[in-house]
């Protein structure tokens, strides 16, 4: 169709004596220019013919709790049998079905919560956690021989008292999100009845405290 139009257009120019019959150079120029215009028009026609495609997007956000710690390690003062205080920070993003969030701390080997290289041990039942979540809960003096029975690696018989971080009544409704903030819990350990009666051997005792937050 474009070629027919082009031939017709050139003859029209010759008949009107606008273009001479033997003028091949001008003809070539006109043909090239007209073909270019036709080509541009074709490209424009392709763009406007683009089809629309709908893509289904799904975002799945699962329940999550993140626990972090500041303050470093726990070091007992040999004079008092108490450690320095550290802080746990708990952030969460939940679907509102959980009614409480608790912090669990435990020793993997209750009989040897702290031990020297010569196997002089301090059991978890001789140790207590002191913690405080402002306006929510606090505890001290409860031996770390609790058995919460919640699994997930928490060792029954080697667990300290659970720290309540939040619940529905305190929260004023379903627990959903910590909203970018976090729940701070101060935490330290103490050896119960620390003194000569414990008959502790001298030495370097080491141990590991495991801490995890649960929403249920």
């Amino acid at each position, binding site marked *: 169709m474009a070629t027919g139009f082009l031939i017709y257009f050139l003859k029209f120019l010759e008949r009107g004596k606008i273009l001479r019959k033997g003028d091949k150079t001008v003809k070539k120029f006109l043909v090239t220019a007209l073909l270019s215009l036709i080509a541009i028009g074709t490209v424009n026609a392709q763009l406007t013919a683009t089809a629309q495609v709908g893509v289904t997007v799904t975002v799945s956000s699962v*329940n999550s709790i993140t626990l972090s710690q500041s303050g470093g390690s*726990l070091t007992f003062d040999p004079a008092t049998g108490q450690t320095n205080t550290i802080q746990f920070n708990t952030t969460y993003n939940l679907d509102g079905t959980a009614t409480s969030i608790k912090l669990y701390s435990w020793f993997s080997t209750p009989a040897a919560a702290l031990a*020297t290289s010569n196997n002089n041990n301090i059991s978890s039942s001789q140790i207590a956690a002191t913690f405080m979540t402002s306006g929510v809960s606090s505890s001290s003096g409860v031996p770390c021989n609790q058995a919460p029975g919640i699994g997930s690696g928490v060792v029954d018989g080697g667990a300290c008292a659970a720290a309540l971080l939040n619940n529905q009544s305190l929260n004023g409704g379903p627990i959903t999100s910590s909203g970018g903030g976090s729940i701070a819990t101060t935490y330290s350990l103490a050896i119960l009845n620390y003194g000569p009666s414990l008959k502790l051997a*001298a030495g370097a005792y080491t*141990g590991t405290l495991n801490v995890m937050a*649960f929403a249920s």
Partner: protein
Amino acid sequence: MFDRALSGTMGQRGERENRMRKYLAVLSTLLLVFGSVPALATTTASNTVIVPITLTIPESVSISTGGVSQISLTNANPQSTLQVTTSWQIKSGHTGAQIFSWFSTLPTGGLNNTPYSAVLFTTAYNGGATVNCGQPAFTGQSFGVAGQNCGSFAFSQNVATDLNDSATVAFTLAVSFPTNQAVGTYGNGVLNLLFEIS
């Protein structure tokens, strides 16, 4: 006959309906009981944070005379016994515990203002053998004064395993008054008691 057949059919249908009603009643009850229970909340657990713990208890030993800081001996009372309490908190690896005693300064005085002879003093532990205080240097020890050392006492406790304990020992210091020792008051003597765990 037709009526009987009809009534039989009606009876079977009624029985079926009754069974169906009972079934529906049970199903409705189950739905009411369990259908109204909200979805059980699942437990969401955080990551586990691990906190290292250390407790360093230094070794320590102590010895006490229960507040007694002076011993006076006379012809009428030539010996004195005091209770020496020792305690220890140690690591594994030790082999023995001992009390050593010696005069760093002998009592001096009398008519000639001379030291009272060390060999005229004796010590005994828990009523055991007496040892005079003219002993040579303690073997392998840096403390003591050769010629003025008294007896030592080895504990029966096995400190290789008894790592935190205490024990009280009756310590007796006695003096003799030979006729060639000038009479008079001899004072300012210093007797040392040392507890060692090796």
